[in-house]
């Protein structure tokens, strides 16, 4: 192996790893706040990426309508759960969030979509659509069972993944899509070529890590979100609105997922079911990071990306086997270090 190949593989690995890091961060975020292990994270990636790619060709993606439909269901649930204490302000909020917001996004998409729409507008539209879907996903699927065990939430999460992936096929078809590059800037450093795209990936990843770390470590809202995860009842008793915390977490996670998708769709062709595998690699990183630490997750994600790049060069057949087996030694270490006294709650 020569140094050039190694450098190329390293660069490739780090770029992929940065995407996994973003997803891993979103997973940690959602888990820390809601205890949901977000399997549909991969669908946020594909929805973001493919909505953007479709908008780039001038078409309106079906996700815009999905957001409206989910908003309607969320509206129904909001009214149903508050049926004993309905008042004008509550209804007004439900109408604004559940109906006006997705409808506005959908109408805006129809109004703006076209072959000549600037990239920035397309990105904004894709992000808005996926953010709405993420928000309503929490409202519909998880908020009613927010108090249950991690396992129930996990199984529900798998259900959401199945439904969203199936819908992805309906919206985007079985053919893969590729989106236009965000910028055509390129830098050369020795044998390596850095595209604007990969620089954007690095920059955004670092920005998110720092932002999340600051948000959760130092802001009151961030601390309130963490408190919700540790003890919902306790958090409610001190005045934290736990349902809002969950919605914020999902909103952020879907945004991060969509951004990751938009970042990679110009580099590789994405299919409606690609997200699952990408999301799972983010998972591996998140698990290695223990689902708690942002910097550790980011480092682990880079490691996953690099291992993937090298194994696809040396043993491309067993690339996935190697990446997913990577988790086993980590799990062994964790189980050896597991505390002796740990009572599981049911």
């Amino acid at each position: 192996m020569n140094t050039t190949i190694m450098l190329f593989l390293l660069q490739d690995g780090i770029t992929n790893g940065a995407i996994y890091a973003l997803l891993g961060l979103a997973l940690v975020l959602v888990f820390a706040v809601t205890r949901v292990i977000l399997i549909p994270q991969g669908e946020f990636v594909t929805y973001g990426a493919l909505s953007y790619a479709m908008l780039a060709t001038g078409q309106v993606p079906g996700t815009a309508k999905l957001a409206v439909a989910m908003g309607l269901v969320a509206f129904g649930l909001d009214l149903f759960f508050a049926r004993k204490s309905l008042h004008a302000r509550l209804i007004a909020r439900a109408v604004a969030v559940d109906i006006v917001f997705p409808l506005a996004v959908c109408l805006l998409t129809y109004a703006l979509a076209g072959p000549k729409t600037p990239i920035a507008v397309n990105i904004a539209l894709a992000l808005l659509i996926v953010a709405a879907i993420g928000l309503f996903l929490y409202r519909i699927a998880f908020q009613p069972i927010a108090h249950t065990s991690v396992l129930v939430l996990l199984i529900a999460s798998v259900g959401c993944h199945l439904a969203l992936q199936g819908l992805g096929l309906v919206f985007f078809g079985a053919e893969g899509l590729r989106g236009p590059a965000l910028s055509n800037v390129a830098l050369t450093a020795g044998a390596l070529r850095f595209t604007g795209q990969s620089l954007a990936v690095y920059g955004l990843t670092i920005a998110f890590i720092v932002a999340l770390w600051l948000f959760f470590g130092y802001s009151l809202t961030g601390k309130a979100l963490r408190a919700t995860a540790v003890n919902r009842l306790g958090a409610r008793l001190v005045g934290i609105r736990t349902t809002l915390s969950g919605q914020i977490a999902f909103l952020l996670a879907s945004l991060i997922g969509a951004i990751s998708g938009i970042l990679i769709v110009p580099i590789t062709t994405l299919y409606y079911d690609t997200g699952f595998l990408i999301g799972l690699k983010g998972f591996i990183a998140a698990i290695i990071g223990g689902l708690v630490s942002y910097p550790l997750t980011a480092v682990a994600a880079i490691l996953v990306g690099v291992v993937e790049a090298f194994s696809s060069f040396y043993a491309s057949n067993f690339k996935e086997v190697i990446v997913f087996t990577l988790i086993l030694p980590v799990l062994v270490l964790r189980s050896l270090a597991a505390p002796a006294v740990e009572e599981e709650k049911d």
Partner: protein
Amino acid sequence: MTQRLPLVIFALVMALIPLVPGMPPFWIVLLDNIGLAALVAMGLVLLTGVGGLTSFGQAAFCGFGAYTTAVLTTAYGVSPWLTLPLSLLVSGIAAVLLGIVTVRLFGHYLPLGTIAWGIALFYLFSKLEFLGRNDGISGIPPVAIGSYEMLSPGTIYYAIWIAVLISAVLTLNLLDSRTGRAIRALRRGHIAAEAFGVQTPRAKLLVFIYAAVLAGLSGWLYAHFQRAANPTPFGPQAGIEYLFIAVVGGAGYVWGAVLGAGIVVILKEVLQSYLPYIFGGQSQLETIVFGILLVMLLQLAPSGVWPWLTARLPLKTARRTADTSLTLPARERAPSTSAVLLQLDKARKQFGGVTAVNDVSFDVKAREIVALIGPNGAGKSTTFNLITGVLTATSGAISVLGRKVENAPPQEVVKLGVARTFQHVKLVPDMTVLENVAIGAHLRGASGAVASMFRLDRADEARLLAEAARQIERVGLTDQIDQLAGSLSLGQQRIVEIARALCVDPMLLLLDEPAAGLRHMEKQRLAALLRQLRDGGMSVLLVEHDMGFVMDLADRIVVLDFGTKIAEGTPAAIKKNPEVIKAYLGAAA
């Protein structure tokens, strides 16, 4: 025999179905698929619903079973009947290897770990040359009895459903036994089970292997039913689907697995054949409906369809009467001349910078009731945990019968005759009082999992239940013996814990706040019981906040404050001790 009646009827109905004239072959294929899925789901019921270990990777074990027979029969011409034990063995060995790594994981790490190796194994199946890569292996010979080959879906049908019925009976037998109780206690955390000698890691590994072997059996049948094996049915999607089946049916119920398999397989078939007509020719629509149904089910009926169904059927569970004339042999006692049962010598426990127990020394002699009192946070429960091996002491020594107990795990401490109750009641709420108490006698039984599955444990089991019933009678809860422990009042649950501890046949009983939540009369009865136990030769060490109760009962009192022993003496002396008064009421200004 009446309990077996529904089972016999079910077996007869299943046996007659293929003989119904005009039965469409397609339905038989569907029933074959239901049986195959039910086998895997049954393993998951034991693993997830009963044992609390969620696995998304069961499909991979089906793969081990299927590929083992596929390779051996096609490449080496081995007879399918010979590959059956080998398929089960390979699945079992894979489960041991993966289980050693996975079952020790806590909470959500476990399901995530299973997802990861489930996917890794799927890719391994689809990339390995000798497994035929993505195309798999075809031309697997059918199962044959003599010259009769099970070629049609209608004949393999019997093989599949006999396997389902036998597995269901074995699983039910296993659950209704000494090992079964240990497995059922797993979901509620391991501390209580370990305090009575259950080796929880081993019990977890056991259910893991059991589930994997059932999946391997399903895989073996699948390979000979389809006469081919390829990676797709052993991938992560299938693993998710099996879990879905278990949840739909009712994850805690063996028959729920069969019911769930029926619902899901038929639903999938219906969705696959009708949805394209309704919504046009797009595929994968069924996964959308599937996903939505799964989420709705968790919100509306989280415990599944089977319990919902049985609650509406006029089935009554037979009352179990234990034959109390049977007796268990007494616990093996270490020969000892020491009159001191328990001795703490400068026991110390630090959590980081906090010293929870600060060089505490005291002892408990034979036939003595000692009370450990002190304000909240004095280190009483931590002391209990040190004695019983739940925590290891930072320094100092704890001896039982004059022998040092050095970092012995709870399972070893209980063997010495030290039994305990918990401050926060740790019973299994969905087990009856009798079953809960019988966990206490775990170490006095000997029957293992295999013996239980084939009902060779009945004599041993009857003696265990008799002992449990006797201890329940002793604490005065005979009327509640068949009730679910979770339905009792908190005070009664504490008494159940005492009965469970008595089943150990202990020499020293450690009671953590036994009188909390009891009414006045109940407290008096408890005090009378404890005096009676002492007079019978047992010693008691108790933590209690009810001073009236303690002062009346205890022979000696040890007072802790902020982890340090501040006084020790008779109740009368303790009442007058200025240090104790200061600790409880504060210093006079």
